[in-house]
């Protein structure tokens, strides 16, 4: 699984950070940073929830073998 954020859409609402802080971090500069582009299987449910709950529909997933 690869996490892709459309930074033209992202408005740093930080919802994703609330759900999966291992993968997403909004820092004090108000920008979103992806901490782990290829999260392990144990994080997949959380990442999918982050995709679902993003108010800007800015996160998408590319399914990969890993």
């Amino acid at each position, binding site marked *: 699984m690869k996490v892709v954020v459309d930074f033209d859409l992202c408005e740093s*609402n930080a*919802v994703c950070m609330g759900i999966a802080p291992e993968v997403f971090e*909004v*820092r004090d500069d108000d920008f979103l940073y992806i901490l782990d582009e290829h999260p392990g299987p144990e994080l997949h449910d959380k990442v999918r929830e982050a995709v*679902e709950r993003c108010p800007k*529909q800015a996160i998408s997933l590319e399914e990969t073998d890993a």
Partner: protein
Amino acid sequence: MTGLVVVGASLAGVHAAEGLRRAGFDGPIHLVGAESHRPYDRPPLSKDFLTDEQVDENRLVLRPVAEDGALDLTWHLGTRAVALSNDHGNVELSSGETLAADGVVVATGCRPRRLPLSTFEGRDQSDVDGVVSLRTLNDARELRHRLRSADGPVVVCGAGFIGAEVAASARQLGCEVVMVEVADAPLARVLDAEAGMAVVDLHRRHGVDVRLGVGVDHGHTDGGRLTAVTLSDGTELACAVLVVGIGVIPNTEWLEGSGLTVGSGSDDGVLVDDRCRAAPSVVAVGDVARRPHRRFGGTTMRVEQWDNAVAMGGYGAKSLLAALEWRGNDGEGVVVEPFDPVPWFWSDQYDRKIQFAGIATDDPEIVQGSEGDRQFVRAYFGDEDRVLGVLAWNRPRQAIIGRQLIEAGADRATVHDRLG
């Protein structure tokens, strides 16, 4: 099973339909939607959809629909449900068709409250050229056109979030904007008077003429077209476009006689339990549903928020399957815990991102910055100094941490430590 019926094809309904499929339900699902558009996202309608002509309507299509156009649903768009009958086993449609339902998701949302007929000499506001409420894509298309071609001032009636966002968008388009609010401070019920005044200051700094403690009493028309309004203090204002943002009414009329508990006034909406159940085979989700909030003393509230519609839609799907004792192909059923997330919303106005988690109380305190700053954080405390609400201006990180602190029942000292 003959099938499930989801009534309402906006955010909550679409997420409920997706939730049913995700849980493995492979029987028939009917999705009934009053609007004829493919389900779309509403928050942009008061913001970039108005200000930015580049916003393509295809970008508004809700993710579950955009990703999987069919979701294997039977669509009934441009159709209203008119009754829930036969002990909740039938959903009757405006087309005359009746759908048999083993289970029903009620997600019919709300509609804008309108100005009284007396405002326009007995006419409904929708019959007056130049008066607009904003809820649907059609409303937004009309408003976008009117703001761009306005040859006079735009008057916004109601300084709630919809009104304030439209005022900000209209200013960005160069319109002259007057915003009137009947209360002495806007958002006094959602936030508190001081925070509401910070919103007023923000708009005044951007050139909006904000008038508090006055409403719109009368609209003047010329050949059916609005030309001016008279305020409750007697002031007459020229007006090319009147935007009415005075709250919403839940769409529950079709449930009359259904046996569901539907309140009115301050108890409006469909009453559900802590599993979103309104009856043994009926769940209600999104802003039409009134649910108990355990962490706020068990008080029941409707939550008119985007995040709530997404979460409650997905949850309600699972809760319905659990109630119906549905079993998947693997023989597994669905188990749900009570639904009680901390409410959270955002509002974008000018260069401000306003986020609020929880509920306001009469014990607010600044924990970072001050109300005049570009960035500040304000917390609201309840019994035993527990935090119940967090307001963050341009502080998204703090808003989300604040939401978690509310969930954890953090005390005042912890809030200062983590958010200060």
